[in-house]
Each structure stands twice: as structure tokens, then as C-alpha cells.
């Protein structure tokens, strides 16, 4: 131990605030980065799961899109 007491360790001869701010920001940013990456990973994993659970065994979802007809769509005006 390079310090005589715990108080000395915190104060670090007056350099304490600088050192601790640096370490704090370092820990917060690195941990934040890890947490953010992990949550995004989980979210994407869940999205994938939803995609595959809704599709049937044939794998491709419902068949072909209907062909274009260009008939006018009725808009009701109640």
C-alpha cells in the first residue's frame, strides 16, 4: 500500500478529485458500453425469435403478394 490511511488514499495529496473523476468516467463509460451492447444483443435475439416463431414450418411466411390491380379504394366518410 502506497498510502498511510484510507483518507490519504481518497485525497491523494489533493490530486484525488482528478484521479477519481477519471476512474469514475472510465468505469461508467466502459460498463455503459458493455451494458448497451448486451441489451442490444438481447433485443436483436428476441426480434429474431419473434420472426421465426410466427412463420410456419415452410419457413417463408404466407405466399406470394397479390398482383397489382389499380382499382380505386373506397374511402368511407362517416
Amino acid at each position, binding site marked *: 500500500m502506497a498510502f498511510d490511511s484510507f483518507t490519504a488514499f481518497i485525497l491523494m495529496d489533493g490530486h484525488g478529485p482528478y484521479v477519481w473523476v477519471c*476512474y469514475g468516467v472510465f468505469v461508467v463509460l466502459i460498463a455503459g458500453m458493455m451494458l448497451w451492447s448486451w441489451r442490444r*444483443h438481447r433485443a436483436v435475439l428476441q426480434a429474431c*425469435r419473434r420472426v421465426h416463431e410466427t412463420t410456419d414450418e415452410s419457413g417463408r411466411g404466407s405466399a406470394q403478394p397479390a398482383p397489382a390491380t389499380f382499382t380505386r379504394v373506397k374511402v368511407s366518410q362517416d
Partner: protein
Amino acid sequence: MWQIFHKLGSPKWFFGIATRLMPWLLAGALALLAVGLVWGLAFAPKDYLQGNSYRIIFIHVPSAFLAQSVYIMMATAGVVTLVWRMKLADVFVKAVAPVGLVLTFLALFTGAVWGKPTWGTWWIWDARLTSMLILLFLYGGAIALDRAINDEKSAARAVAVLVLVGVVNIPIIKYSVEWWNTLHQPATFKLTEKPSMPAEMWVPLLLSVLGLYLLFGWLACLRMQTEILAREQRTRWVKEHVLARRAG
């Protein structure tokens, strides 16, 4: 040889390897970082010139070191993207660019805070800090370009070109910034330059550098896996993977 190369490039193969590798990377990273940082903070001797403020070195140097090597890794992956069109390289660049940005920011921030007790000011246009600031711009540019292009393949290739141009420029930038620095202020003593460092100082420094490398490895694996899942959503192996995990 060629086949091994292609196997290495297969996202599915990488996904499996990464899953097995990641616990080890994380455990190693946390252990090394904990030992390195606690040693550096509490047990390493006080520096006779800078006092206790020098203890910032144990996070400043690893961040700065890694920030630069991540950019070089990205450039290497960029070559692979452009020459061999390997999907995994595209994924790597996209996944690690934000990590590089954060590390560069950390190096800048810790450097600036360190400057206050050392030089008496929060910011000094010191050669190292200025180069770091430019590296931050380079990362920002690469990420902005990647976000601006909708098509994944085109984005990967455009970013690869940009990062390669950047990597050619980095030595030029470093050299010119150092020259500019000597022009504007006579050499003051530099933050991290030491004639000789006792073992009680450089061993914890080495440990934290290694620890941060492993942590980067873990982050890169995780983020690449995320990116691969998003891109290969529709493939059979992803389906098997996600459904198996729900069952298990």
C-alpha cells in the same frame, strides 16, 4: 488454404467460436483490469515528479493505445472487405467503430483531466492530445458515413475506403502535429514520457493494457454477434440457434 480462409469468413462459424470464447475473454478482462487498476491506484509508488495524479496513466495509456490499434484493426479489416469481400470483415468494422470512438474519448478526457494538476489547465494543445482529438474526428466520420448509407454492402465498402485513407493519414497527422507543437511551444515535459519506469509502475500498466484488450475482444465478439444476427435473420442456422435457446 483458400477453404480455411472462407470458413473463417463464414458468419455461422464465427458465431459458434465467439460464443465459446466470450466467457474466457470476459473473465480474463475483468481479472486483469481489477488487478491492474487496484495495483495502480493503491499500491504502485507515488511518482516523484507528478505526485499521485500520475495514477491516471493506468487508464489513459490503455485507452489511447487501444483506440489507435482499433483504428488500425479496422483498416486491416477494410482491406479484407475490399479485396476478398468477406462478410465478417464488414461486420467487424461496423461493430467496433463505436467502441473505438468511446476509447478515444476516454483517452482525451483522462488526458485533459490529468492536464489540470500537471499543467494547471484543462486543455493544452499538446501533440498527443491533439492527435487524439483528430482520431476522434476520424472515428466520427467513419461512423457518420456508415450510418448515412442504407445498403449494408456499399456502406461497408465505403467505410473501408475512408478508413484506409485515414490510416495512411495517421502517421502524417502525427508527424505534422508534433512539428506544429514544437513550433508553437518549446517542449514542456510530456504526460506519459518517462526515462525509466520502475517495475511497480509498468507491471500494473501492462496488466491493465492487456485487460482492456481482452475486454475489447469480448465487446467486439458480442457486437459482431448482434450484427450477424440482424443481418442473417432469415437463414436456417439463425432460426435453429434462436429456437434452440428458447427450448434450452
